[in-house]
């Protein structure tokens, strides 16, 4: 489904963010990418989303070179990828419901679809009772759950979670990981970046380890080794 083919990324100031990256991810996999800060995890994700172009090599999404896509097609690509971030990135003056609905509006879904789907995803992340609260009134864990709900509401093919538990306590961290596992079980591919050893050991799924812009390990049911 995703294939990185000899990808390198060099920034104008000569810093080499990625060197000769080669790997692929199949449908319905759950992959964790680990590494120190600056290892290149976020750059990898940016390349996948076509936010940056590789200096060398190609990034394929379902056999299509992501960087050959026309701008309109890039936006379509992004609708198939749900993103979750460490800092949640919710809109502060919209309620929980509106934040999720917004993702559907922006993707051009009808009012009926929105009215049907939003309550469903809210139930999935167990936040029905907080639908009309503003993000400012929610805890970190609750905010991240809203972010996940927003990420899955358009039924994407992949969820990318970039350090989703970075700002959360252990209990909330556990809950978020469980939600991500549940999403993966339903059939969505999940890519998770983290440097939380606990999550990795808990998951027991594939782990790609990066350092200095290179992939140094790729374990099918990995343990956290750095």
């Amino acid at each position, binding site marked *: 489904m995703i294939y990185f083919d000899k990808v390198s990324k060099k920034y104008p100031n000569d810093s080499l963010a990625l060197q000769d990256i080669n790997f692929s991810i199949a449908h319905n996999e759950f992959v964790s990418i680990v590494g120190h800060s600056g290892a290149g995890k976020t750059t990898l994700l940016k390349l996948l989303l076509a936010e940056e172009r590789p200096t060398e090599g190609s990034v394929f999404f379902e056999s299509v070179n992501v960087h050959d896509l026309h*701008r*309109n097609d890039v*936006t*379509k*690509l*992004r*609708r*198939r*990828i749900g*993103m979750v971030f460490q800092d949640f*990135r*919710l*809109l*502060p003056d919209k309620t929980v419901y509106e934040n999720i609905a*917004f*993702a559907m509006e*922006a*993707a*051009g879904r009808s009012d009926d679809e929105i009215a049907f789907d939003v309550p469903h995803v809210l139930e999935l992340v167990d936040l029905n009772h907080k639908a009309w609260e503003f993000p400012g009134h929610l805890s970190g864990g609750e905010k991240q759950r809203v972010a996940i709900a*927003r990420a899955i509401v*358009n039924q994407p093919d992949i969820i990318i979670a970039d350090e989703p538990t970075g700002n959360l306590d252990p209990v909330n961290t556990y809950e978020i990981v469980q939600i991500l596992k549940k999403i993966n079980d339903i059939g969505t591919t999940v890519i998770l970046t983290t440097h939380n050893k606990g999550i990795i050991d808990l998951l027991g799924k594939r782990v790609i380890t990066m350092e200095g812009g290179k992939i140094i390990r790729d374990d099918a049911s990995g343990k956290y080794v750095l």
Partner: protein
Amino acid sequence: MHSGFLSFWRNGFVSLSSILVVTVTLFTIVSLIFTNVILESVLADFKTKVDVNVYFITTAQESDILQMKSTLEKQPEVASVGYVSREQAIAEFKDKHKDDYLTLQALNEIGDNPLGARLNVVAKDPSQYEGIAKKIESQNTLLSGGVNIVDKVNFRQNKDIIDRLTKFIAGVKQFGYTFALILVCTSLLITFNTIRLVIYMTREEIAVMRLVGASSMYVRGPFIVGGMVYGLVSALLAMILFYPITLWLTGKTTEFFGGVNLYSYYMHNFFQIFFIILIVGMALGAFSSFLAVRKYLKV
């Protein structure tokens, strides 16, 4: 569309500067239209009052004068020729100076009628007066003995005034266009900046929109619509402002300039004027928004 209106309502204060400057621009444009109307009307009025007067010597024979009159009337450029006999001329003169005792007395002293007859020639188009005057000066009916019966052709003075007025109007128009152009550019700049500011203020929302894969139109649309809303509001403001102004001005200018009732012109052509400034306003807004979005909104 809906979200365009909303977002510009919410950013009310910031929008104010843009609305104000566009209103001023539109206001100026309408003022220009009005000034044009007034000046053109004055010029037209003036042109009708202009004629060529041919003054004859006192000993000219009426038959010769009348013959000249009919010759002139036959000219294609001539609209009409009026004949004022010596007696009529003196009566007019006395009437004009009826309060001027000294002049009347001087007239009595002379005894005889010092004034000659005259012909008032009205041309179909003021530009033809020069031609007519020249013709008259060259084609003089001669008395027996070869004396020129035409004393004076009074055209030069009026021509001067017409020329000066025409130049003045051209000058005013030129100034007006330049000024309006400057204002249009200013409006474009300020609206551009305002939209840029709003883009900055809503950058979080924009980032999320891009994240969830919103189309270009979805992201840009509200800003362009917002620009057009500025134009719309400004046009409305300008029209509302003009209503009392034309009422007030009409009182002052009708007498002075004569013949142009601004207020009735305004009401009569209300929809045309409104339509013009609406289009101009909305185009201004949309265009500068478009530029701002292109430069500052990376989609």
